[in-house]
């Protein structure tokens, strides 16, 4: 049993919309999992069901091999919502201590861990400051610490890098890798596709409350590749045409070609060689997740969905 979380046929309907409509997927232990989707796709509802805030209307959540029991499993989960939630008037140290104790740590245990993390993220001098005195990035760091402090098995991060400068973003990124290595599973929810590509092993894309994509980043890219190749030639002849491909884009001596049905990349190379052209570079162009995302989501009335009534 190496799945930390298994969702099957999860449904949650609100009066005016189907927020989550029959979603199933599972997450491997120790992996970094990306949950993607446009605004209002149902991500937050999904996450709230996983964190035990909402009960699903139907379907089944299994956590660590057993039926999810919010009451007891919640302390094994760390949730960092998209909007930062901290008491403005409270001192940083007290706040961290309070949240850690609510997660079931004893006072002394919490103290040791806070000191460890504060030192690690260079926050030791903050203890007596108030949250309202912190910059956005600083409170982000604090929120991150309070989320992972109790060493949860499952860490859910909603847009963890927003508001962070590159140095601090890298710091947090390294911590995320470190946490995954030490056995925590991370669910990573974001719109920033380049981050997903960089960090995540496995992604699920939801739209309109339904899962529309599920797989590893590499597999999905293969699945959506359009047989495009980038070619760099020493010199581009005036009219370069062949049965095997068509030029999709050209910038000086760099071409992007789309290989036609029934041909392989070798056919293109062969053609170019026959023409006696100098081939400086030749490689496959895989679609970015961003393109895949936009392709799949565009035109699905995703943005106007909140106002659609449920069809009976």
């Amino acid at each position: 049993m190496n799945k930390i979380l298994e969702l099957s046929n999860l449904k949650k309907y609100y009066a005016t919309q189907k927020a989550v409509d029959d979603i199933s997927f599972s997450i491997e232990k120790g992996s970094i999992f990306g949950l993607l989707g446009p605004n209002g796709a149902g991500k937050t509802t999904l996450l709230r069901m996983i964190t035990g805030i909402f009960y699903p209307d139907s379907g089944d959540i299994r956590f660590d091999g057993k039926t999810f029991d919010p009451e007891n499993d919640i302390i094994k989960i760390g949730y960092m919502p998209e909007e930062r939630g901290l008491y403005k008037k409270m001192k940083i140290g007290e706040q961290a201590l309070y949240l850690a104790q609510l997660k079931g740590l004893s006072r002394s245990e919490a103290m040791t861990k806070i000191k460890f993390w504060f030192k690690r993220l260079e926050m030791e001098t903050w203890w007596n400051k108030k949250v309202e005195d912190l910059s956005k990035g600083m409170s982000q760091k604090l929120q991150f610490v309070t989320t992972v402090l109790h060493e949860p098995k499952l860490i859910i991060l909603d847009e963890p890098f927003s508001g962070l400068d590159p140095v601090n973003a890298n710091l947090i990124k390294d911590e995320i890798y470190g946490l995954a290595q030490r056995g925590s599973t991370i669910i990573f929810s974001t719109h920033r596709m380049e981050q997903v590509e960089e960090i995540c092993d496995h992604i699920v894309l939801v739209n309109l409350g339904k899962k529309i994509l599920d797989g590893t980043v590499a597999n999905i890219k293969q699945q959506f590749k359009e047989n495009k190749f980038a070619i760099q030639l020493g010199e581009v002849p005036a009219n370069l045409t062949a049965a095997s491909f068509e030029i999709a884009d050209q910038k000086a001596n760099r071409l992007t070609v789309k290989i036609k049905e029934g041909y392989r990349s070798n056919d293109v190379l062969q053609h170019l060689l026959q023409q006696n052209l100098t081939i400086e570079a030749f490689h496959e162009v895989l679609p970015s997740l961003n393109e895949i995302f936009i392709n799949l989501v565009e035109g699905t009335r995703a943005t106007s969905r909140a106002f659609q009534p449920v069809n009976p």
Partner: protein
Amino acid sequence: MNKTLLIIQREYLTRVKNKRFVLTTILMPLLIVALIAGTTFLSIKGKDERKIAVIDQNGFFKGNIKSTKALAFEFPEGVDTSNYLQKGYSDILLIPKFDSTGKMNYLIRSKKRISITTESAISERINAAIEDNMLQTAGIDKAQLDSIHVQSQYAELKAVEENGEGVKESSAGLSYGIGFGSGMLIYITMFIYGAMVMRGVMEEKTNRIAEVMVSSVKPFQLMAGKIIGIGAVGLTQFLMWIILIIGLTTAAQAFVPHDVMEQVKTLQQANGQMPGGGMAQAGDAAQQIYKMQHTFSTANWPVIILCFIFYFLGGYLFYAALFAAVGSVVNEDPQDAQSLMLPITMPIIFSFIIMTNAVQDPSTPMAVWASIIPFSSPMVMMARIAYGIPGTVPYWQLGLSMLSLIGGFLLTTWLSAKIYRTGILMYGKKVSWKEMFKWAFRKN
């Protein structure tokens, strides 16, 4: 540690450690005591002392008009309207010769304006003197007259009420004071602490703390922790006030001259009578202090304080849950809170109005029913309890009122918890009362 306890602890400590809390807690009783001490001091010491020179053409008033330290009448030679100020008099009273028509105009001249009370005191004394004069001319001799005056002063109204074992002294004035005071206190605290709960919930919602919190604790724990924590703050404040007021009044007694306190003690031992003579022997100040202490002792303080704590807590819990529900549905805009609060503040204000009537007449059907219905019972019942249990408030009414208040706050908490649970995580949408009702009454 239990999570709800942790929340209560945080809510309590952050507020109690707040400078504003410490300030209001200390300043409030200081203010009240300063007010009481100030007025008492003024009434004892700072009386407008007037020395009046009397020019009496009849020669009668000398020896017959009552002269006291505060209002002294003297009959000096060689003083007239031109020089009375230089001779050390504050006023000069000119009394014309009696004539047969009886109607006479007295003239009092002064530099310092005479207050309305002093004016009536002067005319009262003149009239008394004239009355004496007439009685004497009618044939009653001076000794007889004096003894009549002394005896007539003994008449004093003492109200007693029936209770189980016998009769007990009571004071309508004190009951009114206690009833109105405690009703007023409950009214103010309901608003202060209710609004505190609402603002706390709004803070958690708009700062998105709620979302972090509900991933660790149940929404109900969060709400209950806040309500209980703030309620404990209120109780602490009351306790501090009571301690401070008792301490300060004890300290204030130190300023009363020693011999006056001795007299008060003797009065207490002798149950209001000076040994070997009438009350007249004890000083004015001593008598006032004794009277005040005596009147205070007629109230059933333990019962009143216990009931006050019960009704404060009950009323607070009843309304705090509703305030929490409103706080949970408000978004960034505080004006939303204003309009949503109206249905909660209306019954509170209405109860206050009923309370002001009930404290004057505690047995009207309106007062009785309002003291049983949980919406208004905390204030109205306190107003009635001051008039005595079981005299004015029978036990069955008290019991029914308490039970319905407990039932009431359980109900409002239960309904509010449902609204709160949905509202606290709902953003961007303006919620109406209709929707809140829907949330409150839907199943699960």
